[in-house]
């Protein structure tokens, strides 16, 4: 179990500001582990997609556990753990506590890990019911009624939002970790990045709905940069006023069902978005009831 994975072609790892030996061996570089829970692996792939930086990352940290990339495993503790995925089974709960205990800095990556992911839609469903419909032997299945973010179970040092995470933010967390500083992870709205880029505002100039005003920055305003409204994949910003945004979406002609759906995507489980979708649903139910009552009264 303890075969060190030497990054390809690297024999003399770089020295670091915080005092590693010049002739640092694999064992003196900080150990990085990448963990997976309920998720699609897309965020881990974002890490592998950091092609230009991957070599420097491998020089700077000792990739000790990263099944998506290598089968070799180095035992903990790990100076830095990146955790992808949400907690959906009793075993997940046990495992995340073990990982926390073995990790120095623990950062969660992606909408699954930070909000429960698209699979948090189960939070609105009856798990027993669909379990018996989907599986021939539901009794073999050990699953929780909900999909929850990692931070609902253990302390998390940094959260990287997004479905998937943004490559630049991943590098920023690694660079900050290696240099002993705090990573820059803004929690303001997507509109900030959108305006800094010089984009023309999509809803104002075209009438298309955009979730940017209630969504946390980090993607570089990707969708509005291509003339499309933001889908909210980075989850709620720190001061999300979903009530006001819902009114704007209604005014732009979005039907209630669609509004419920836009809040219930990758970040359905994020409290601000969950509450917003529930509120729209409740209003729609109430409106339908009063319509029915009116029709009943009129007849």
């Amino acid at each position, binding site marked *: 179990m303890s075969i060190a994975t030497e990054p390809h072609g690297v024999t003399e790892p770089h020295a670091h500001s915080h005092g590693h030996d010049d002739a640092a061996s694999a064992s003196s570089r900080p150990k990085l582990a990448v963990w997976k829970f309920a998720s699609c692996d897309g965020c881990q792939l974002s890490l592998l997609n950091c092609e230009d930086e991957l070599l420097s990352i491998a020089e700077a940290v000792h990739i000790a556990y990263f099944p998506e990339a290598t089968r070799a495993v180095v035992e903990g503790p790990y100076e830095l753990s990146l955790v992808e995925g949400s907690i959906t089974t009793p075993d997940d709960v046990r495992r995340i506590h073990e990982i926390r205990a073995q990790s120095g800095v623990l950062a969660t990556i992606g909408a699954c890990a930070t909000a429960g992911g698209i699979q948090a839609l189960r939070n609105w469903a009856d798990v027993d019911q669909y379990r018996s419909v989907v599986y021939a032997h539901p009794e073999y299945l050990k699953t929780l009624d909900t999909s929850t973010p990692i931070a609902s179970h253990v302390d998390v040092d940094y959260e990287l939002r997004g479905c998937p995470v943004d490559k630049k933010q991943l590098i920023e967390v690694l660079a900050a970790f290696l240099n002993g500083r705090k990573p820059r992870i803004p929690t303001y709205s997507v509109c900030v990045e959108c*305006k800094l880029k*010089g984009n*023309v*505002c999509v809803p104002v100039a075209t009438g298309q709905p955009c979730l940017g*005003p*209630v969504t946390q920055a980090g993607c570089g305003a990707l969708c509005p940069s291509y*003339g499309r409204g933001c889908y909210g994949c980075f989850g709620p910003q720190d001061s999300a006023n979903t009530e*006001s945004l819902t009114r704007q979406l209604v005014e732009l002609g979005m039907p209630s069902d669609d509004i419920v759906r836009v809040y219930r995507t990758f970040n359905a489980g994020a409290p601000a978005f969950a509450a917003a979708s529930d509120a729209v649903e409740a209003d729609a139910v109430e409106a339908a009831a009063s319509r029915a009552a009116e029709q009943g009264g009129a007849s």
Partner: protein
Amino acid sequence: MDDIRILQASGLDALIEELRSRGFRVVGPTLRGDAIVTGEIRAASDLPRGKGDSQDAKTYRVRSRGDDAYFGFAAPAQSSKPVFFPAEEVVWRGHRDHDDDGHFTVERDTPDGAPIALLGVRSCDLRAVQIHDRVLAGRSHVDAHYVGRRDGAFVVAVACSDPAASCFCASMGTGPRPATTDPETGASSYDLLLTEILGEDDHHFVMEIGTDAGREVADEIGASMGHPADRDDAVAVTDAAAARQTRAIDTTIVHDVLRASAESPRWEDVASRCLACTNCTLVCPTCFCTTVQDVSDLTGDSAERHRVWDSCFSESFSYIHGGPTRESTKARYRQWITHKLSSWEDQFGMLGCVGCGRCITWCPAGIDITEEAAALGRMSGLAAPAPAT
């Protein structure tokens, strides 16, 4: 400078060419996608000829005017603010030299690039540049990067003929016809001022000369001499434009209204609508707040300090030792409008709003500074109550 010239519409290319041959990078309004934005102008064909705009709370649309006007629209999506004061810039770069005992050297970044000629800048935005001259370059600590870009800039202003519904410069005293001189410094506001005149079969600009440099350019491109009556034509255009403005702020009371409104119940109301999205501040030609971000690479051998626009609408803006001082959106909205319409005057001697209307157009929730100021006026008892309907 009582010198009036006439530039035929066909002479715009000569003007642009002359500025370019003098080494200026010409920056002005141009159509990009769904909006008129500020970009590089290489020829008159880069200008949004025949285009107008419709602007109102949370709506912006480009429209066809059905004529050949080059400047027949109001405030572009972004002002000239980023030209002199970019959204993000490097302040310094640092490098660790392993051959020199790990010594860390820091180099100040100096803005390079050609001097700027603003073409077609509107009165509101020109006033905003003067306000930035005061804020960024007219106090004890001068913003060297701003001054580096602003010094030696050439300004061809354009008087507005067709304000949008969002415009209220007339009430702010900042347009639609620009003041000849900067009231703070006494310097000429522009090198050249153009007023577009579109007749039946005549399309020309009344060109007013503001500086010697402006006169040189006018001479060089052969702009013919005009008459005092041409100035009357130009003033008639802006008078009509001012008369068409529907929004207004009462500047005689607004400073005191905001002072009296610290505890107004209006803040709760506006906070229920405000998305705390920051758009209003980032499109405002006078907002100048920035934050500093330090960036390092994985090795820590290279680092950069960036200066980036910030906004009093974000929670992190007021973060001090463990928490934000303006946690609620109502505190942030109050800060913003109070700064624009009251405390800015205490700080810099003029209001911080030039009436360009961008915060109204580009607010995704359609919050209207003129409406909020009017409501605060009524609620504070300093303005007459709204007529009963």
